[in-house]
C-alpha cells in the first residue's frame, strides 16, 4: 500500500498533503518524507519573519529538488544548511511540476516571507513540462489518467497569459482531448520506443541511448525554439518579480552528466538568460563531470533516474560557495 501524498490545488494543480509524514518504498530501500503545513516537503514550517541572525534561501524546483528517492535530510537543499553557516533553506520544490507551476508557487508564497536569496532549480527537461497543458497521472491502483495543469501561453508580442487556473479538478479521458492530445506531457520523446526499451532494463536502455547518441532535449538547440521562448519568458518574468537575488541552477539530466548527449544547447541558453536578466547562473555540470565516468553512474539509482544521496551531496557542495558569496554580498549591502 502506497500512501497518497498529493492533494488538489486550484493554482498549482496539486501539492503535497500538509502535515504528512511518510516513508516511500523505493528501489534503494525507501525514503522518509515530511511535509510542512504549507504543503511542501520542507523540514521547516513557513514563517513570515526571518530568524534573527539567520539568512534565508527559498528553493524552487521539481522532484530533483523535492528529493524523490532520498530522505528530506539527504537533499542538496537541506545539506546546504550544513555547508553554509547560519542559513535556513525553505524548500518549495514540487515533484512532477514544471517551471510554470514553480513560478506560480513562488508568486503565491514568496511575497509573504522575508528572504535573502531565491534559488530557481530548473531540471532542464522541465522545458517539456512547461510546454504541456496536461500531465499523466497514475492512481494508487495503477490507473492511467490525464489531469489538466496550469500553463502559460506566449503571444507574438511576448505577453504571457495564464490558462487552466483554477485548475480543472476532474480527470479527463484522453479520448476526449481531441487535438489537445499532443499537449500531454508523456515524460519524454519517442514514447512508444522508450516504453519498449524501459521494459528491457536500465542497462539496455543506457546502451541504446549511448549507441544512438540520443539527444533528450533538442528544444534548447536554437534560441528561437518555441518551447525555449516560453520557458525563457516565464523565467524572465519570475526573475524580474523577485525581491531578492536570484540564482539560476540548471540541473542536468543524466545523459549530460554521463556524456552520452551534448549539453551545449541548454548551457548556452541559460547563459544568455542569466546575462539578460542579471540573475546569477550556477551550473553544477562541471562539478558533476569532474568525477570519473564510471563513478558518475552512481549519481542516479539503478532504475530511477533521480539523484542519489551522493549526487545530492555533490550538488550541495557545488552550490554552497555561490550561495555563501551572494549571502555575504547581500548582508554587506544591508
Amino acid at each position: 500500500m502506497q500512501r497518497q501524498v498529493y492533494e488538489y490545488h486550484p493554482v498549482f494543480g496539486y501539492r503535497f498533503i500538509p502535515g504528512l509524514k511518510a516513508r516511500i518504498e523505493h528501489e534503494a530501500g525507501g525514503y522518509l518524507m515530511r511535509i510542512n503545513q504549507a504543503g511542501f516537503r520542507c523540514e521547516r514550517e513557513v514563517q513570515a519573519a526571518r530568524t534573527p541572525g539567520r539568512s534565508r534561501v527559498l528553493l524552487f524546483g521539481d522532484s530533483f529538488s523535492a528529493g524523490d528517492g532520498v530522505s528530506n535530510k539527504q537533499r542538496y537543499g537541506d545539506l546546504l544548511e550544513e555547508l553554509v553557516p547560519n542559513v535556513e533553506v525553505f524548500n518549495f520544490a514540487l515533484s512532477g511540476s514544471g517551471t510554470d507551476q514553480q513560478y506560480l508557487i513562488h508568486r503565491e508564497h514568496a511575497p509573504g516571507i522575508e528572504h535573502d536569496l531565491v534559488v530557481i532549480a530548473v531540471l532542464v527537461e522541465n522545458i517539456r513540462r512547461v510546454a504541456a497543458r496536461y500531465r499523466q497521472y497514475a492512481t494508487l491502483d495503477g490507473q492511467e489518467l490525464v489531469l489538466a495543469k496550469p500553463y502559460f501561453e506566449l503571444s507574438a508580442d511576448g505577453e504571457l497569459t495564464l490558462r487552466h487556473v483554477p485548475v480543472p479538478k476532474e480527470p479527463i479521458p484522453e479520448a476526449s482531448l481531441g487535438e489537445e492530445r499532443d499537449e500531454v506531457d508523456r515524460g519524454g520523446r519517442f514514447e512508444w520506443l522508450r516504453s519498449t526499451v524501459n521494459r528491457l532494463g536500465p542497462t539496455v536502455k543506457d546502451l541504446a541511448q549511448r549507441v544512438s547518441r540520443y539527444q533528450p532535449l533538442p528544444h534548447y538547440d536554437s534560441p528561437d525554439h518555441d518551447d525555449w521562448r516560453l520557458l525563457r519568458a516565464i523565467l524572465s518574468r519570475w526573475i524580474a518579480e523577485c525581491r531578492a537575488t536570484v540564482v539560476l541552477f540548471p540541473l542536468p539530466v543524466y545523459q549530460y552528466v554521463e556524456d552520452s548527449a551534448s549539453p551545449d544547447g541548454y548551457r548556452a541558453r541559460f547563459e544568455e538568460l542569466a546575462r539578460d536578466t542579471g540573475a546569477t547562473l550556477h551550473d553544477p555540470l562541471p562539478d558533476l563531470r569532474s568525477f570519473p565516468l564510471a563513478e558518475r553512474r552512481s549519481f542516479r539509482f539503478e532504475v530511477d533516474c533521480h539523484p542519489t544521496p551522493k549526487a545530492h551531496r555533490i550538488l550541495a557542495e557545488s552550490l554552497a560557495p555561490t550561495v555563501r558569496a551572494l549571502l555575504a554580498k547581500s548582508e554587506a549591502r544591508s
Partner: protein
Amino acid sequence: MTTHVLGISGFYHDSAAALVADGEIIAAAQEERFTRKKHDPRFPRHAINYCLQEAFIEPSELAAVVFYDNPILSADRIVRSIVAHAPRTREQWLAAAPSFLGVKPFVAAHVRELLRVDVPVLFARHHLSHAASSFYPSPFERAAVLTLDGVGEWATTSLAVGEGRDLTVLKELHYPHSLGLLYSAFTSFCGFKVNSGEYKLMGLAPYGEPRYADQIRDHLISVRADGSFELDTSYFGYLEGNRMTNERFEALFGGPPREAESRITRREMDLAASIQKVTEDVVLGIARHLRAESGMDAVCLAGGVALNCVANGLLQREKIFDRVWIQPASGDAGGALGAALLASHQRFGVERHTPTNGRDAQKGSYLGPAFSSSEVRAFLERHGYPYEAIPDVAARNTVVAKALADGKIVGHLSGRMEFGPRSLGARSILGDARSASTQSVMNLKIKYRESFRPFAPSVLAERAGDYFELDCESPYMLLVAPVRKELRLPVPPRGEGDDDMLPLVNQVRSTLPAITHVDHSARVQTVAHEDHPVFHGLLRAFEELTGCGVLVNTSFNVRGEPIVCSPKDAYTCFMRTEMDLLVLEDCILYKALQPALDADDSWRNEYELD
C-alpha cells in the same frame, strides 16, 4: 542514543513487523493489512516500511532486526519428524521444504536486500518471543507467563516467569504434544480452516453438549497432575502428512470430517463443546501448576491458544491468579513484537519501566497506521466522493450515534489501526446492540455470511459491570463474560437431538440480542477514554441518546478479506456492502449520496473464504 529494534515474523502465517524504541512500542502491523491477502505469510516488507515510517527513522538507525523464530531449530524439528515417519511423510516434506530450506535461512538476506543497510539480524526463540510479547507490555513488574500455541521450533507450551527485564523459562512441553494442534485438529475435523477457523469452533461450542469430552480424555490426551499432557499421536495425521486427523480419529468420532461450508450437525456442535471443555480444563490445570511453581499472583498469556477468549474468561473468573493480561496479537504476528522487546531488554539491556498508572504498555493495541484528516479529504476530493466534514468530535459523534440509534450500520475508521486480529473501534463496523435485527442485517448484508456466531459488544469501561458479569477491564476483546442475569430473557428449551441450530441463531436472548450468545455470554471489549477518546466519546453519545452504553462491534471487512487499513480500503468495503454510513476520521459519508459502484462484483472472488 535511542535503541531502535525491529521485530519481524513470517513465512508461516500472519507475517508482521513491530518497532520498539528504548523498550517503548512505537509501531506494529500485520502484512496482510497492506497486501490485502488474509494471513499473508510473505516477508513483511510493507509492515517494515510502515514501522520505519511511524518511528521516522532510517534503517541505519536500527540497533538490530530480530526474527521471531530460530529457523535452525524449526528445521531440526521438521526434519526429525519427517525422517521418523518416512516414507509416509513425502507430502509433508514437499509442503514444508520450500519454507524452511528456501526462505527462512535467508531472512538476513531478505532484510538487507530490503533495507540496503548492514544491520545485525538476530534470531529469537519462538516461545520466548511469544512470552516476551505478553510479559513486557503487561502492567506487571513480575508475573508468571504461559505460552500455548500449535508449535514453534520444538515447543508447544511454555511456562516462564518475568521480573523486570528478565524472562526465564521454567518448563516446556514439546512437539507433537500440543494443545494448539489438538484444537486445530478438531477445527479441521469440523470443517473449518486451521489457523483461522479455531474462532468459529469456539463460537460453535455453546450450541453443543460436551458429550465427547470423556472420549477425548480417554483416547487423545492424557493430562498429568502438574497440568502437563501427552497426546496419543496415533489419532492424528499431522506427523505424517498435511491432514490434521486420520482414520482412527474418524472412527472415534463417528465418521468422516464435515465438508467445509456444508450443514453443521449436532455432532460438530458437540465436538466443539467437548474440545472447548477439555481445553479449558487443561488451561486451568497448567495455570494452577504455574501459580504454585512460580509463586506469582499475576499471569501473562500468549500464543494462539490465548485467543480462546472463553478459556481466558474462565481463567479470569476462577481467580487462580489475581490478575490476567493477554497479548492481543497472541498469534504469530505478535511474535514480531515479542522478538523486538526481547532483544531490547535482554540483548541491549534497555531497562523496563512498567507504566505507573496501572495500565499496560500496549497502547490499546492501536499500533498501526493512522490517516490524518488532510489525507482523508485529499482522497475523497481526488475521487469526487461526497462527504460532510465535522471536525468537532462531540458534534460528529452525536450525528453517528443518532444514525446508530436509528438502526443504521456504520463503518468506523478512526485513529491508528489495531494490531492483532480484533477490531477495537479504529477499524470497526458498528451497530445497535439493542436491535433484534442487527445481527442478521450485519451477517447477510455486510459480512455476506450465515453465521452462528453473535457479534461482540463494545461497552463503556465504566459501565461494563452494568451489562456483564465482569470485574475487570477487557480492552482487547479477549475475555468472554456472561450477560447480567437481569438483562437475560427467557428462551424456550431446546429439544433433545435437535440438529438444526439456525432457528437459535437469531433468537432474542437478552435486551442486547445482537451480542448475546446462546449461552448468554458475550465477547466483551471495554472501552476506556484513555485508550480511544473518539470511540469512547461515540459510546458515550449513544448512551446519552438511548440510555445504552453498548454497541455491536465487528471487524471492518467482508468474509475472507483482511481488516481494512486505509481510507481507500474502507471506502471500497463500504461501497461493496450495505453499510449506511462511513466515518473516515472527521468526514462522514452517506451511502445514499455516493456515486454508484461499478456493477461488476468479481471482487467477491478476490478473497478466499476463511
